[in-house]
């Protein structure tokens, strides 16, 4: 627990030390939403299956995708934090300490998740002030569904995060792999558009990409858009993913870490 608190505080200290770097990240979702929204504005044709489609609904459609992806990516980026420690030469000392690995990873990610929440709220405020988005009246059942989707998606994302941390220990230029995966996910997950518009081979990958259903369920709940699978099925799938992925991810990470301890992690 002490390691978890220390590393969470370290993340915040880093954020306060490099405030201007962090300040920029709150504009991330804004820069997903506006360029996509301008296309809609230019074309003005309904293609997103949202009831009473309007420019506001389109912006909300993109905003939900961007925020959802921000959370998923926020956890994946723990691997980049590990890489940074490798680059700075502090990983070996950290790894040699008695701190549990899980506490370390959770410490790195908690700070990022809180940061993501803060800049998501700021982005929401900015886009609302521009009258680009607004939140519909939310029933208790829908609010619960939103919480379930976010919590279990975050858990599932940890599973991916553990795998990426393992890959970072294994490959000297893991940044490229992480960057490729990170960049591919918004396309395959339909962060900005319905995945039915993808070509068949990519659509197949998109259907097997778990976070596709997370963002789809979130939009189904908040915007009433048509979902790929029935909403209860999607919720069940997300809960299952959230329970299984962290376990499998941790097993993979532990295996790679055991190998790294024997073979070394300095080659990068």
């Amino acid at each position, binding site marked *: 627990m002490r390691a978890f608190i220390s590393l969470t505080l370290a993340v915040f200290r880093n954020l306060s030390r490099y405030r201007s770097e962090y300040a920029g990240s709150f504009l991330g979702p804004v*820069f997903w939403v506006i360029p996509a929204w*301008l296309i809609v504005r230019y074309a003005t044709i309904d293609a997103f299956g949202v009831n009473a489609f309007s420019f506001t609904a389109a912006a909300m459609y993109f905003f939900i995708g961007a925020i959802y992806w921000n959370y998923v990516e926020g956890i994946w980026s723990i691997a980049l934090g590990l890489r940074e420690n490798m680059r700075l030469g502090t990983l070996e000392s950290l790894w040699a300490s008695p701190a549990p690995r899980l506490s370390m990873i959770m410490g790195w990610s908690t700070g990022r998740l809180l940061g993501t929440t803060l800049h998501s709220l700021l982005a929401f405020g900015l886009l609302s002030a521009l009258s680009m988005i607004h939140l519909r009246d939310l029933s208790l059942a829908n609010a619960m569904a939103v919480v379930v989707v976010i919590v279990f998606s975050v858990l599932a994302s940890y599973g991916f995060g553990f795998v990426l941390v393992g890959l970072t220990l294994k490959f000297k230029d893991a940044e490229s792999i992480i960057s490729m995966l990170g*960049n591919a996910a918004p396309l395959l997950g339909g962060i*900005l558009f319905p995945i039915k518009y993808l070509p068949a081979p990519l659509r197949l990958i998109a259907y097997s990409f778990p976070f596709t259903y997370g963002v789809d369920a979130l939009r189904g709940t908040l915007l009433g858009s048509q979902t790929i699978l029935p909403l209860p099925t999607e919720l069940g799938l997300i809960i299952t993913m959230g329970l299984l992925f962290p376990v499998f991810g941790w097993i993979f990470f532990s295996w790679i870490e055991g190998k790294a301890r024997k073979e070394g992690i300095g080659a990068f």
Partner: protein
Amino acid sequence: MRAVFSLLYKELSYHRVYPLDLISLAISPFFIVAPFVFVAKAQNENLQLAVALGLIVWYWLSMFFWGVGYGVRDEIEEGIIESLLATPASIRNLLAAKAIDTLLINLYITAALMILLWLLAGIPFHLDWAKFLLLFIVSNFALASLSFVYAAFVLVARQASFAGNLFQEAVGILSGMTAPVSILPKAVRWLSMLIPLTYAIEGARKVAVGQFPYREMAILFVFGVVLLLLGVFFVQKAEGYLRLTGTTGEY
């Protein structure tokens, strides 16, 4: 000139040592560009080519910003800027080498992007390639010059990724990256006219409809010359500031 080629050799060697980066450079831009292209596809298939070209050209700017402007921080973080400053080579030589490397990468990325967008999004790039190549060269010259100005800012400000991100993204929106400048509010449209990327994107879209973008290329060339002079001046000043204050190791 020898210093520029030696530094360029160093930049190119990096790609040999990290081959996965080259694969990532071929594939990652597609993943960044494609979501917007599919938004266009969902709206109106005729928009796809215009959106794709706008994003490809914006990607050139992005590469110069991070490869040249912010790229100068690589040497600072790796702790080799001091050794470089101790040689007769200057930071301008380093930036020139990075600019040539980025130009080659942009060519590589553009080819990879067009192939992937053709294969996976079905966009037919029926362009006059000679015109497009000319536009590519002039645009890259203007954007590289702009990145020199940003490099000077990075050297002095040190924490400049926020400004870089903000500028790159805002410039993308203002220059008509995904939709023509004409749909932007009138109040900000004058800003678009001050950005070289606007003319590069307009030029690319003109090539797509079979026109020769004389006007855009002339404006880009003027932008390139002015920004290069400004960039070289500011970098020289920033280098002097670094030497005087001894802040090369701070970031």
